[in-house]
């Protein structure tokens, strides 16, 4: 216990001695953890969005304004009979307008348009999101639907989520690769920085270390202050990263949610706790490995 206090005292002295390099290593740790945190947070948001999109995989078949009610009923019956369809419902033009008003943050546009530009639609809920493509094709090629389709080409009258989901995935994959590369680079830079800072701390105390060895201080006792210093850099860097992400969570996310009302952006508080824990642990690992590398090189016992 008393030696822990000793380590802490020594590592704080190390801070004061090499303030600029210490700041350098703290900032690099902070930046790498911050970016890791951003990606984790972004990942959580995207995960949320994707899940909600996937849950809502449905097909909307737009119906021409002039389609007759009997044709619409026939098409509905046909669709209801397809494999993988859970339920079929009908949205009239008025209902569509109402829905749009609810969803949109800018409902005034609709009023200014005058009249109702929105088509009526048949909404098809699927029991199995995987089959969306298949069901859509069947609807597309059916005579019943061709008769009532809003556009001349029936496939243009069909909207379904699969394409969006796929596009979302391919985009997030790219972002993920870039993120991982960036993180690796930053972690590497942080390691180099910590390595350098600890090396300077070791050099500054070289004489003391020689005497400690001479009088038989244990290896752990000699190394303790330097490990502690690396860990302190990491903890401070992690704390900065956590504070920044907390700020983003409290300031930026609500705005993002407000402007993208239709996407469920809010992430559970537990997820954030988890992210913070990961940042702290990752920081500690970076700090300890960095200082251990330095010790292996410059502190042979």
């Amino acid at each position: 216990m008393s030696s822990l206090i000793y380590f802490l005292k020594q590592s704080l002295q190390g801070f004061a001695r090499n303030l600029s390099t210490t700041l350098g290593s703290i900032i690099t740790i902070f930046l790498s953890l911050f970016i890791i945190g951003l990606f984790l947070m972004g990942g959580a948001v995207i995960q949320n969005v994707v899940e909600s999109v996937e849950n809502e995989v449905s097909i909307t078949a737009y119906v021409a304004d002039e389609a007759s009610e009997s044709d619409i009923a026939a098409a509905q019956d046909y669709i209801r009979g397809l494999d993988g369809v859970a339920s079929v419902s009908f949205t009239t033009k008025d209902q569509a307008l109402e829905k749009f008003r609810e969803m949109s943050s800018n409902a005034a546009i609709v009023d200014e348009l005058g009249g109702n530009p929105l088509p009526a639609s048949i909404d098809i809920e699927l029991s199995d999101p995987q089959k969306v493509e298949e069901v859509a094709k069947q609807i597309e090629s059916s005579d019943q639907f061709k008769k009532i389709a809003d556009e001349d080409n029936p496939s243009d009258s069909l909207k379904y989520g699969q394409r969006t989901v796929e596009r979302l995935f391919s985009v997030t994959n790219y972002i993920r690769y870039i993120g991982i590369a960036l993180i690796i680079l930053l972690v590497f830079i942080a390691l180099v920085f910590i390595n350098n800072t600890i090396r300077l701390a070791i050099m500054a105390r070289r004489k003391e270390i020689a005497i400690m060895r001479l009088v038989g201080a244990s290896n752990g006792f000699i190394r303790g202050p330097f490990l502690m210093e690396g860990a302190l850099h990491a903890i401070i860097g992690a704390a900065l990263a956590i504070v920044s992400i907390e700020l983003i969570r409290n300031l930026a996310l609500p705005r993002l949610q407000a402007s993208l009302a239709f996407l469920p952006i809010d992430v559970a508080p537990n997820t954030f706790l988890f992210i913070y824990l990961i940042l702290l642990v990752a920081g500690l690992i970076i700090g300890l490995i960095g200082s251990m590398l330095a010790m292996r090189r410059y502190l042979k016992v």
Partner: protein
Amino acid sequence: MTEATNQGAEQRLERAPSRTGRLAADLSEALPVLEIDDLPQQGAPVIAFDRVSKVYPAQPNRPALEDISLQIYPGEFVFLVGHSGSGKSTLVRLIIRELKPSSGKITIAGEDLGSMRNWRVPYLRRNIGCVFQDFKLLPNKTVFENVAFALEVIGKSRSVIRTQVPEVLRLVGLQDKLDKLPDQLSGGEAQRVSIARAIVNRPPLLVCDEPTGNLDPQTSRGIMDLLERINRTGTTVLVATHDREMVDNMRRRVIALDRGHLTRDQQRGVYGFDV
């Protein structure tokens, strides 16, 4: 201080059974033998070298030490003499396992250094006090702190430090300079501090590498008196030196090295090299 002296005297009496001596070299016999006790060479040796050689990688053809065998017993006071480069410092560094021998076996207090695990080395060093020519004091710490540092870093409690440090500083005669910084001390005083630091943990073995190398003859005598006093408390003392006057005056066991070879090992010896 006086207590220590008395204790030393008692121990001297107890050691009275003398051993029949080794052959001393002619040179030694020719000189008057001073009044010193013969030391008992009994029990297990503190330091035992068994055919030890050390070759530095930089000089593969010129071994720093070659085929050295010697035993040093508890309570002995031994001079290790030889010219610069004869291997004295190498031998000292082998004892504290700062170096490993290229071949041969070194045993310190019954423990084989060759098979000793690295993490055990600090515990070995806690049992060996070390004094060097350049004092190795920390310039930004006071006399007291310098000595206390040796106890701090091996995890001794504050109360132990508070009692032991002033005591050992009294023993070396620096009780009035606790708060001085090393650069406010004379060379002799600085060396006394480093001796105090070496013995504050009460190691059974004290190894000194040229302890008087930087000091004038009179101060050197003071240091040697101190080392002798420490020896009388039962500490085994090994002094590597090329201080002819000191060795000739004290007439203790002398081990001579010449270019890495052990050339002489005699009781009550003299320096014996032509300068």
